[in-house]
């Protein structure tokens, strides 16, 4: 695995929802190396620390990476102000461990909560009709990426907290219904901590393997500075792993051993 840092052109930019942006970056060297579940560390003009953003799509033939991100603060705001044709300064592809994809004939449940949805598109594409995607949002105005999930051939269950789009309720309710009737080979999840805990608990109860993608405030993004610590259990001992290098994808038993 090689890391790249460089300025690459933004070849398209769209607004998907309020403060949620979709950018395609032409970076063939990065795209050639990138795998599902990795991230890019983006320079925000005026700020020292880069902002880690998950990869939503990798087109190796065209050499394009797609990122979908939400404005969370001043740094992501600055990145969101870049326009089509501008150059974006990225360090990528980062993440020592992406999603582990099983044979595409296996059954997968793929769960995204809010801005945790973008990294799940690539997994849905891998499993296609053998996947069920549970895609959750606060309300209808926050819903993104439904066409992208539909195109993969996966069954898609849209949930909103207030019922303004799709099914009313949390993704964990939809998951409970699925698990009552079937046992998938693997569950993937990305989203808020409370959501991940619920999913990991449900997976553990049925003995289903579960992988989660985490986020944490980062420094270098490559595993040298050790700031993005994540409490894990290794060989029965507590160990602070690092989201950038040891993850961002972890097995649920490593990070939520008690759920």
């Amino acid at each position, binding site marked *: 695995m090689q*890391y790249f840092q460089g300025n690459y052109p933004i070849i398209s930019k769209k607004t998907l929802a309020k403060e949620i942006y979709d950018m395609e970056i032409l970076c063939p060297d990065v795209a050639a190396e990138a795998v599902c579940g990795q991230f890019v560390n983006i320079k925000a003009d005026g700020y020292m620390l880069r902002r880690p953003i998950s990869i939503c799509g990798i087109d190796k033939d065209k050499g394009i990476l797609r990122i979908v991100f939400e404005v969370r603060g001043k740094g992501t705001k600055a990145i969101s102000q870049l326009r089509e044709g501008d150059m974006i300064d990225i360090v990528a592809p980062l993440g020592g461990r992406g999603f582990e994809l099983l044979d595409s004939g296996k059954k997968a449940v793929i769960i995204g909560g809010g801005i945790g949805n973008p990294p799940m598109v690539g997994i849905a594409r891998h499993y296609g009709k053998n996947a069920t995607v549970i895609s959750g949002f606060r309300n209808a105005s926050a819903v993104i990426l439904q066409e992208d999930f539909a195109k993969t051939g996966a069954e898609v269950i849209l949930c909103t907290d207030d019922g303004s789009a799709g099914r009313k309720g949390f993704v964990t309710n939809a998951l409970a219904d699925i698990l009552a009737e079937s046992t998938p080979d693997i569950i993937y999840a990305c989203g808020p901590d409370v959501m991940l805990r619920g999913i990991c608990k449900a997976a553990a109860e049925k003995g289903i393997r579960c992988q989660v993608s985490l986020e944490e*405030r980062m420094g270098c993004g*490559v595993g040298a*500075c050790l700031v993005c*610590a994540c409490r894990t259990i290794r060989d029965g001992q507590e160990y602070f792993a690092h989201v950038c290098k040891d993850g961002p994808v972890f097995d649920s038993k490593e990070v939520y051993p008690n759920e």
Partner: protein
Amino acid sequence: MSEKLAVNFAGVQFKNPIVPASGAFGYGREYEKFFPLSKLGGISVKGTTLKPRNGNPAPRIAETPSGMLNSVGLQNPGVEHFLNVELPNLKTKDTVVIANVAGANVEEYGEIAAMIDKSEVDMIEVNISCPNVKEGGVAFGVTCDGAAAVTRAVRRATSKPVMMKLSPNVTSIVDIAKAVEAEGADAVSLINTLLGMRIDLKTRRPILHNNVGGLSGPAVFPVAVRMVWQVANAVKIPVCGMGGVSTWEDAAEMMMAGASLVQVGAALFADPYAAVKIIDGLENYCDEQKISNISEIVGTVKPW
């Protein structure tokens, strides 16, 4: 690489004066995915303790104007892992290896230094200034007696060049530098991070789980230049300057203030090639200014 940048620091030959700072560069394995480590003058490795340490809970980092706070808390795999796994790898990289060590008490500093003394490490940097651990670290760096006691213990334990890394969180860094010089330190490096704090307005909680942490980045650069200048004027041993160095101009400024070696830390997070760009920039500077060796500019500031 020409000889223009070659420097001798405390008896150790460096191909150039630029060294990634401890804590910013791990043991080099990550940044090697960007460039060959042989480009660097040396590497000051992650702070190493006698036993493995898990460090502090997250969040361990907060952005600040032109800088950052960190509170990693000396997470490291311990000195045995360093000597058995990391050092043999680093010794194949054609660059100077500086071990960075911290102890929980004076005896421990001596014990680690004795273990490293038998190794192929080129130099030992002694951290008496980490602001992020309760035991050890900065406790020794803020008094002349504490700094002197650690220096004495390390000096007795090793014949390798010893560089004491000083804290800026003191009334007089000059007095501390003189105290470690008197105990036989071969060099000093400064500054470690400045103690700082940020608070989240919504939660009213400090952003760092450790509440407080060390400030680094361009924000601290002028403080570092001032302290390097003061210390370089007060001691005879060489000074390694660090604190917010991000560009070759910063490095040259640090050297004019009196540093004969320069470490680069937080700048690497903004640009993984920062150290390499600084080296190339210094080389061009020497060419343009017809400087035959970069050491010629050390301490050449002309104060008013």
